[in-house]
């Protein structure tokens, strides 16, 4: 079996999600190649070549892939992917954007967000906001798969020495163009890979009050997340949303502050190792998944917590 993993990167650095995806490829078993598609992305290819277990790195360095527009990525990955039994990408917003195009162009199904590999053709994936785990089996010649990173422990970033090979792909399809980007800047760890996550919900009342959570987070070296209600109300930006339709996290410690615990929120955090809930309503559903629940007014509990850390 030959497996193609599409690397996640920003042309400068290889993103951690790639390492979890390689881990999924290892679980399938076979020869693993990594495709780095970008522009001026030589450093990423070098990093990918060092990843443990990777035997080949393919680099498609072309202005058409600079921003990984789905239209161009779709044709490139389908083209390159033809020679493989499996094509994998992380289930990030980037992977979710182009991988279904790859599957459609290859006329095969896509298996979304797998969390476990049963065998080379059988996989587990959560459905219904994680209330059900489905085992699915594919008889397609090429399995196109997105990988939920929390389902697989990252492989080592160092230790490999894969050969790097240039590949050429289709030119810019001219269907779409990149206009701009507003990326959140933060010195805190990335939400999806942080060891500790502190999240706030509607109970925070406004964006300014999130300062309290940032202070706690900084003492813990944690990332800060939010519920949909907090994002919709404009307290914090969209990239902080944890849940079924936001980011999936599984840190060692998740602290939910002023979050009720709707199933859509739980879908994004209930695989965390230890869950703490701070909520003034003792019947809030979040307490049903919390290892440690504190029934308290967050405006007293959070500053007190910060002092004690």
């Amino acid at each position: 079996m030959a497996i193609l993993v599409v690397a996640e990167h920003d042309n400068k650095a290889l993103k951690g999600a790639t390492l979890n995806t390689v881990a999924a490829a290892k679980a399938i078993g076979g020869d693993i190649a990594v495709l780095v598609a970008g522009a001026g992305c030589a450093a990423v290819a070098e990093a990918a070549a060092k990843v443990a277990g990777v035997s080949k790195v393919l680099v498609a360095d072309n202005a058409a892939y600079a921003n990984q527009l789905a239209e161009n990525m779709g044709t490139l990955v389908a083209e390159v992917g033809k020679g493989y039994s499996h094509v994998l990408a992380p289930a990030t917003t980037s992977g979710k954007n182009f991988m279904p195009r790859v599957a459609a162009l290859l006329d095969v199904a896509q298996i979304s967000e797998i969390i476990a590999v049963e065998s080379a053709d059988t996989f587990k994936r959560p459905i219904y906001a994680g209330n059900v785990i489905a085992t699915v089996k594919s008889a397609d010649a090429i399995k196109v798969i997105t990988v939920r990173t929390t389902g697989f422990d990252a492989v080592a970033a160092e230790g490999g020495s894969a050969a790097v090979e240039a590949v050429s792909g289709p030119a810019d399809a001219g269907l779409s163009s990149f206009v701009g980007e507003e990326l959140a800047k933060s010195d805190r760890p990335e939400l999806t890979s942080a060891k500790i996550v502190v999240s706030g919900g509607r109970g925070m009342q406004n964006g300014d009050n999130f300062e309290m959570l940032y202070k706690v987070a900084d003492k813990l070296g944690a990332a800060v997340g939010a519920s949909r209600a907090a994002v919709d109300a404009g307290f914090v930006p969209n990239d902080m949303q944890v849940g079924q339709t936001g980011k999936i996290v599984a840190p060692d410690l998740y602290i939910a502050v002023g979050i009720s615990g709707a199933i859509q929120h739980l879908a994004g955090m209930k695989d965390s190792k230890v869950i703490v809930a701070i909520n003034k309503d003792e019947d809030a559903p979040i307490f049903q998944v919390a290892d440690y629940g504190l029934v308290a007014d967050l405006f007293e509990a959070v500053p007190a917590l910060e002092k004690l850390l």
Partner: protein
Amino acid sequence: MKVLVAVKRVVDYNVKVRPKADGSGVDLANVKMALNPFCEIAVEEAVRLKEKGVATEVVVVSAGGKACQEQIRTALALGADRGIHVETEAELQPLAVAKLLKAVVDKEQAQLVILGKQSIDGDNNQTGQMLAALAGMAQGTFASEVVVDGGNLKVTREIDGGLQTVSLKLPAVVTTDLRLNEPRYASLPNIMKAKKKPLDVVTPDALGVNVESKLTLVKVEPPAERKAGIKVESVEQLVDKLKNEAKVI
């Protein structure tokens, strides 16, 4: 500009579903069904485009059993002009839906197709992207803002790192994210009016689409249960537990 909106009938988002005891599928007996929330946002966006004079007609399409005509009627009550029901009792995978939608798009010559980013039952997040690839169209997924400007579409997208804006050539496919708009409620008069709006029924055969899939469901099971935890009395006790019992800080 003609706008096509794809809508799906799903279990209501408030329902916590369970696997059947024999693991053969999800127990959907007597559960409340609804329009997929992301599809509601898609319908709202199309209707707003019509209200702004950008869209000339809003056509909704749903594929599935007879019952999904209810969701088409809901979309009509929200302001869509007419409906198309692709009737089939077959279990539809996203690729099959995308092929059906492609056939409808070809027939209708729609300039813009709006779908939800994700159906909340299968959590696939595929159909819009697949349709775009099959139709050779550009896509603006996870949209939080859509602006039509001449022959192009400016779409702001919710991505992991923040927001990204892309410009798409029309015709194009858009999939909705939560912040795109806040859907309206259907008024009673509009619900009554919706009953008289045209609704055509077609079959996959008539559209020339084979809906078979090579993906099979082996079994379903409940996720690992979390053990119930404890309530702590104070912030001090919480910190003590996290340090000395859980050892996570």
